[in-house]
């Protein structure tokens, strides 16, 4: 029935390269998440607290990021901007694309988190003489971070897996590297099977690390 002979030797030979590429994947996902968290937090605050252009800027960002394919967003930063003579490196394309996408999703997580904090928490802080910046940074945001912690973990997993789109804009993360070797050796199945296992392991490591971090961070 099957007329296919497995050849694992080439995969094994380039295994160190694949692991190396796995680190690139982890790196790009982490960077995108870092940017995404900072931008997402700002977008959420803009959407909740601002009026006028700033609010609409945030709403538009969130709407586009969440309601169009991530691949299209990536293509926009790659080929879209390229058409206007703005040529970004593959690394910049995948980083901006992923950050853009993550920021949109995270903004909505943060918005939910902010809405879960009773307004009386802010009033209490203000009654102690804190200004609104202090009330936000000392009282509200620490509680929001706890609420959105697991959704953020989820988004991190999503970022690791979604970084595989880098392959389509010429960036050599794990998928790009895998594709490169696969087309060189025609061992497509073997390479992608091994890559899948590496993705799995990366995600497991991310989840384990986040669980350890949670145990340290949240003592209540």
């Amino acid at each position: 029935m099957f007329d296919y002979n497995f050849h694992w030797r080439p995969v094994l030979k380039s295994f160190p390269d694949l692991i190396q590429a796995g680190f690139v994947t982890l790196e790009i996902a982490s960077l995108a998440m870092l940017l995404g968290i900072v931008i997402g937090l700002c977008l959420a605050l803009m959407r909740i607290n601002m009026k006028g252009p700033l609010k609409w800027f945030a709403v538009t960002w969130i709407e586009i990021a969440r309601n169009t394919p991530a691949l299209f967003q990536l293509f926009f930063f790659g080929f879209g901007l390229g058409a206007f003579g703005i040529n970004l490196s593959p690394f910049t394309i995948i980083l901006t694309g992923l950050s853009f996408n993550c920021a949109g999703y995270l903004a909505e997580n943060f918005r939910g988190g902010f809405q879960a904090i009773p307004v009386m928490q802010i009033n209490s802080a203000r009654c102690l003489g804190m200004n609104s910046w202090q009330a936000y940074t000392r009282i509200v945001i620490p509680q929001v971070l706890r609420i959105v912690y697991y959704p953020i973990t989820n988004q991190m997993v999503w970022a690791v897996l979604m970084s595989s789109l880098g392959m389509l804009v010429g960036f050599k993360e794990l998928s790009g590297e895998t594709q490169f070797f696969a087309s060189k050796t025609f061992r497509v199945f073997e390479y992608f099977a091994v890559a899948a296992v590496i993705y799995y392991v990366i995600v497991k490591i991310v989840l384990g690390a986040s669980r350890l971090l949670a145990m340290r961070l949240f003592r209540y």
Partner: protein
Amino acid sequence: MIQIRDLHKHFGDLHVLKGINLDVSKGEVLSIIGSSGSGKSTLLYCINGLEAIQQGTVHINGTDVHAKNTDINKLRQKLGMVFQQWNSFPHLTTLENVALAPRIVKGKSKEEALELAAKQLKHVGLGDKLKNYPVSLSGGQQQRLAIARALAMEPEYMLFDEATSALDPEKVGEVLDTMRLLAEEGMTMICVTHEMGFAREVSDRVAYFHEGIMEEIGPPQQIFEDAQSEHTRKFLMNVR
């Protein structure tokens, strides 16, 4: 001294406070009683600027609370506030709950703030709960934590907004005892309360609010035994 002159507060079409005039001098304990929706709590919110007002003035030691150029954060350090819902900060230990504001608002050093916090917590009887998170405290303990947190700012006035209304009946006593202690120490207090026993025994004056108007104010004995207003008599009959 707290001076309130012709204070009006509207929530949209709702006229919640209809021209309140009230002076509270240093060292006085004033209890405000009245049915729900009579504007008692709103008055406290107007005193510390949590709610804007539409007419009239509130002065704390001569400073206009609602004036544009007033540094409200500075002014609020003089006014401790305790709410019906205790609003502990769940992510901080009791000690940190109390130490935070003295440190970041008043600029005290960490050691100084922690020492002060420990002192205040002992004062309200929570000396053995310094390292606990609020989630592990009972309602009464959390309310005493809220009192300690307000006291740590060394306020001149304390505002209590139905501080015992959300507590289990058997926890009411411990919070009232703490409030009593403060009164004995000479703290100036405005207590919106449904605890008639407390109002009667602890206050210097009792004010009765009815539909946004301060109908009657006087020494507890006068209010509880010789009320002039029909509404006051009816209210006191119902709560007894």
